[in-house]
């Protein structure tokens, strides 16, 4: 049975068992028919309270002081997993400082502004954004870019009473915004809680949201999946972030890359009174709160490809064969090892959880890179079972670019590193 069959036989049954409590309602067809024929209006369910609170809290981000002298990539060199990569990106990425402004717009037809909802919808057209492509680096396998997003309406609006109009409210009876106060997300949380709790007759906050969508697209519509990314809200209300996106393997050669990034925006309304909390989300009806930015970046990251083979990798059924591919850019080294292995190894990887396999199987579970004798841990390590006798292990290393001798050393499940199975990369 190959990997495809294994996952096919695993995912659907697991989802159906775990979600067996979600079943159809006998009344659905008739309910929809009534709505379609104008005999009823759509019924919106309540959003679960914990879901809304988690979302609301996540919307209020703490600002981060900008470290002097660093580009946006460098601002994210704050944890071991990405520190070196971000620092190298800061050094080698091209600075673009390319700005795109989305000005405020006029609706196609005059919009009414007779209640709070209508005014908030109309206000979406008044919103303007400035997206700055700060830095970008493109090597053979990845597009990295950093950005700053500025928007005029960074500050929330505080009001009293229930906002009027056709808001699609999600109700949380008995809830209080301040009940989440103990999580301690920072100043904005405290301000929100103080405002909402300080008005027994009811009060609301309008929080204007904006963010950059995951990944990017090429101009021809090819999706560039996000591999990594992060963003932060700055003290001035702007948002800084970065993304790493996967380039397709068959991308034609060229000096430039045309990319498209998307922006989404809207406004969240939080209302609280003695009865509980209500929330609603408002976007521009014509574009659903989505804008697109187009950029051209240079494919000027340099990449060196190295590879290596080893035919006598120790394994329980005799020797096994390994072939390694590594692309080394100015940022990091990425690639994979393709292993021809005994079936007992693929069986282990096909089982859920490490260690569920036969305890005596001493299989290769990862690789460490030695560059001029210095060890670099694998920051990827993802394993793909290609078929019964082939595995791919993903590789990602921090790397000093000018290392003279590169060796991949396998790490076995029980016996650890084995120097006698080193793969020399050339």
């Amino acid at each position, binding site marked *: 049975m190959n990997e495809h069959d294994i996952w096919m036989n695993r*995912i659907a049954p*697991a989802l159906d068992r*775990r979600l*067996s409590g979600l079943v159809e309602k006998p009344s659905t067809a008739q309910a929809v028919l009534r709505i379609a024929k104008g005999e009823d209006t759509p019924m919106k*369910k309540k*959003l679960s309270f914990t879901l809304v609170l988690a979302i609301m809290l996540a919307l209020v981000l703490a600002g981060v002081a900008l470290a002097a002298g660093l580009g946006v990539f460098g601002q994210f060199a704050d944890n071991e997993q990405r520190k070196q990569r971000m620092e190298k990106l800061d050094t080698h990425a091209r600075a673009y400082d390319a700005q795109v402004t989305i000005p405020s717009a006029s609706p196609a037809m005059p919009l009414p502004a007779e209640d709070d909802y209508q005014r908030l919808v109309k206000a979406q057209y008044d919103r303007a954004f400035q997206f700055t492509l700060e830095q970008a680096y493109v090597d053979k396998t990845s597009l990295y870019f950093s950005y700053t997003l500025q928007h005029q309406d960074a500050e929330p609006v505080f009001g009293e009473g229930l906002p009027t109009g056709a808001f699609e409210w999600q109700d949380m009876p008995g809830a209080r915004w301040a009940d989440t106060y103990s999580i301690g997300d920072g100043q904005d949380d405290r301000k929100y809680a103080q405002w909402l709790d300080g008005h027994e007759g009811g009060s609301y906050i309008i929080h204007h949201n904006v963010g950059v969508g995951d990944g990017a697209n090429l101009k021809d519509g090819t999706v560039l999946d996000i591999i990594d990314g*992060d963003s932060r809200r700055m003290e001035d209300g702007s948002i800084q972030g970065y993304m790493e996106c996967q380039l397709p393997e068959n991308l034609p050669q060229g000096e430039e890359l045309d990319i498209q990034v998307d922006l*989404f925006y809207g406004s969240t309304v939080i209302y609280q009174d003695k009865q509980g909390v209500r929330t609603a989300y408002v976007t521009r009806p014509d574009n659903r709160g*989505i804008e697109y930015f187009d950029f051209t970046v240079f494919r000027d990251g340099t990449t060196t490809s190295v590879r290596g083979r080893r035919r006598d990798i120790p394994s329980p059924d005799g020797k096994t064969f390994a072939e390694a591919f590594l692309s080394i850019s100015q940022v990091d080294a990425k690639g994979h090892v393709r292993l021809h292995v005994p079936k007992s190894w693929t069986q282990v990887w096909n089982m859920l959880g490490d260690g569920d396999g036969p305890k005596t199987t001493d299989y290769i579970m990862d690789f460490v890179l030695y560059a001029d004798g210095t060890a670099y841990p694998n920051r990827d390590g993802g394993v793909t079972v290609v078929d019964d006798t082939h595995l791919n292990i993903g590789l990602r290393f921090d790397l000093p670019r000018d290392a003279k001798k590169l060796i991949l050393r396998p790490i076995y499940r029980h016996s650890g590193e084995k120097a006698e199975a080193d793969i020399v990369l050339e």
Partner: protein
Amino acid sequence: MPVVTGPDNHKDVQFVRLVALYERQLLRMCYVYLHDTGLAEDAVQECFLKAYRSMDSFRGDSSEKTWLMRIAINTCKDMRRTAWFKLRTRSVRLEDLPDTALPVSPEDSLLTLEIMRLPQKLMEAVLLYYYQGMTVYEIAELLGISAPSVSTRLQKARRRLHNALKGEPTDE
């Protein structure tokens, strides 16, 4: 005795058949997509409403299932594009899952959670391929991408799921 009235024309009959055939799968798929039972029920209602309204213009140039799944995925995407869901995705927990009607193993719960935690594009591919049983080409047509892109997303998803189930860090 209450009078039970049935659908009064051919279109309605077909629609009732459509709902009977797909509602359960859609509800579960929308739950995985949106992480909330109430929203999933809303999405299913919205999906079937859109389907009913566009039944007359459906030309059969794709399979009925592809057509309906396209409506469902787009409905879920619309709901999920708000900032709420972009940020919510990272905090789904075991205790947030709905009650079950069948016995489940810890592995079922874990796998369900990890699928829900996948990036949206990978999750779509997993749900359409492994749960809805669609082919790579049907999924490519539905999502408006190439077949190799679908295969790549499935491969990435399998790798992420495998790593996550092993307890290894995954790429964010």
